[in-house]
């Protein structure tokens, strides 16, 4: 009995790993193809560039993973990101406050938007697609209203260091390798998200909700409260993405962000998370986001015309998801 049990578990672990391995294999394959096609691809600078360009979308994708595992969706992550960056700008530049307040304010603004979406979904029973579509419009408009349709620049004397937040490098200082902070923050957040999802009570309810919401409710779990909490987490991640974005551009650009939600969702799904809820992993999302940005970067390096880039990315999205489906069917 003991023996049988262990072997069963091993098989499960293996199949779980297999899934990641498969996505990982696609990623490696892409890297190899591009390395062979262009000598300029596999260079330290370019790899760092890819990682840096993954950071913002990646953080959005991490946040989206939570909502998607509940079987929901968040179309507002892109504009909430922008809204948060604008709020950070307002706090630091208009209100002349220190950077940490700006950061806290931005994350809070994102979390608040998530909270409101969560309330609409959980309490008003508005389908997530619609609730977050509305949130997308509202934050898009408010970003422009608050900023006065102008970029907000972080040029106060006390905001000097703001751009270091994402472009500086603690590793340079620590171990002499220059990895931008934004990249470290992205991976750090991935670990945090992974821990939340697998080790905490909210993660457990996240999967339970996505698997069978009614059964979870009948088990006495306060489904609404947890759902709101999960949307709030997603909002907070969008807030962090907004701060990374603002710090990288050294300004809050109020017109940005539309369309980012679809990229984030694509990354999540390529990473093997199911849109119907109940299953998904953070590692998958990280790999999914990397696949997207390696692909974009590689095609650019190869100077593929932009219109063809779009077509190719579309085909790769289909291909990646299909190979995942085939794998599951076999398993």
């Amino acid at each position, binding site marked *: 009995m003991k023996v049988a049990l262990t072997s069963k578990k091993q098989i499960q672990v293996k199949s779980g790993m297999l899934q990641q391995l498969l996505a990982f294999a696609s990623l490696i394959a892409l890297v190899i193809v591009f390395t062979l096609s262009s000598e300029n691809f596999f260079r330290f*600078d*370019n790899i760092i*560039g890819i990682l840096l360009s993954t950071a913002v979308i990646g953080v959005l994708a991490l946040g989206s993973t939570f909502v998607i595992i509940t079987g929901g969706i968040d179309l507002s992550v892109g504009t909430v990101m922008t809204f948060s960056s604008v709020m950070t700008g307002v706090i630091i530049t208009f209100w002349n406050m220190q950077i940490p307040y700006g950061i806290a304010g931005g994350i809070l603004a994102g979390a608040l938007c998530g909270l409101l979406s969560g309330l609409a979904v959980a309490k008003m029973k508005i389908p997530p697609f619609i609730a977050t579509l509305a949130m997308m419009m509202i934050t898009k408009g408010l970003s422009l209203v608050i900023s006065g349709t*102008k*970029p907000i620049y972080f040029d106060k004397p006390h905001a000097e260091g703001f751009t270091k937040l994402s472009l500086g490098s603690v590793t340079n200082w620590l171990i002499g390798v220059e990895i931008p902070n934004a990249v470290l923050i992205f991976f750090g957040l991935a670990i945090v998200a992974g821990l939340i999802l697998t080790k905490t009570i909210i993660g457990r309810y996240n999967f339970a909700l996505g698997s069978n919401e009614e059964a979870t409710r009948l088990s006495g779990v306060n489904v609404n409260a947890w759902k709101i909490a999960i949307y709030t987490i997603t909002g907070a991640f969008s807030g962090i993405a907004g701060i990374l974005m603002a710090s*990288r551009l050294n300004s809050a650009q109020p*017109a940005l962000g539309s369309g980012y939600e679809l990229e984030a969702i694509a990354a999540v799904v390529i990473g093997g998370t199911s849109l119907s809820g109940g299953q998904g992993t953070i590692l998958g999302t990280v790999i999914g986001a990397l696949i997207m940005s390696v692909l974009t970067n590689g095609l650019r390096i190869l100077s593929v015309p932009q*219109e063809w880039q779009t077509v190719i990315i579309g085909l790769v999205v289909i291909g990646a998801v299909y190979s995942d489906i085939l794998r599951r069917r076999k398993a």
Partner: protein
Amino acid sequence: ACNKDDKKEASNGKMYIPLISKGFQHQFWQAVKQGAEKAAKEFDVEITFEGPETEAQVDKQIEMLQAALDKKPAAIGFAALDSKAATPLLEKAKAANIPVIGFDSGVDSPIPLATAATNNVAAAALAADKMAELIGGKGEIALVVHDQTSRTGVDRRDGFKQRIEEKYPDIKIVDIQYGGGDHLKSTDLTKAIIQAHPNIKGIFGSNEGSAIGVVNAITELKKEGQIIVVGYDSGKLQTDAVRSGKMAGAITQNPVGIGYETVKAAVQAAKGQSIPKAIDTGFLWYDKTNIDSDEVKPNLYD
């Protein structure tokens, strides 16, 4: 039984002139709006200013024009995303005796009484000349353009490209990419261009977002000074970059002037006064040396 003149007045009795632009979120358009508002105050008329979110949204602009016509304005200012697509409505305006004033890049139609515009092709060609001068007449360059299909995107790209091809055989355009005017996307794609073409000597950014993206990319790759950046438009980040030398220089149009002249011409047209067909609001090259000069200063916006 409606008499034409009371149709043309807003509820408060002022003349009403809507401006339909190509966008509203960009700094450039905000500067045009500023100029228009200045003129509105001066001539005591009421204006509104709107435009679609992206320059691809030809149909949204048509709807805005439609709604504007339905408000029975005294005159209309119109920066056509696609003149031919707007022809039926322009004819409607003509039939309703509503004067149309073109702005920004001109309306390719006989209907507008006047056009207050920048010649984007010529302006981009000037940028090309400056680029050639700065890189010493030979080497690889690339373009980061804000839009693949819109009039301004196409004109600036082609104006730049044609001048290089005609006059500078030793300069090679190795890549043209489109970043949608999105600062972040432009940054990432410029980095890819630089990776792909390590010998690149100069990059042209076709509007504010693109140019800033190029500057960001070069800063992030620590190649300041090694790659010449030529930009287009102003805005704080660009003027800062020019001052600090990260950007060699840029073309600025006179957006405030465009807005002002458009409203002014519209008022005159509505009053039945005659106006010149073409109002060239001009463009200027600015760099570190002349950025604070009296000639350039009024044409920059933050």
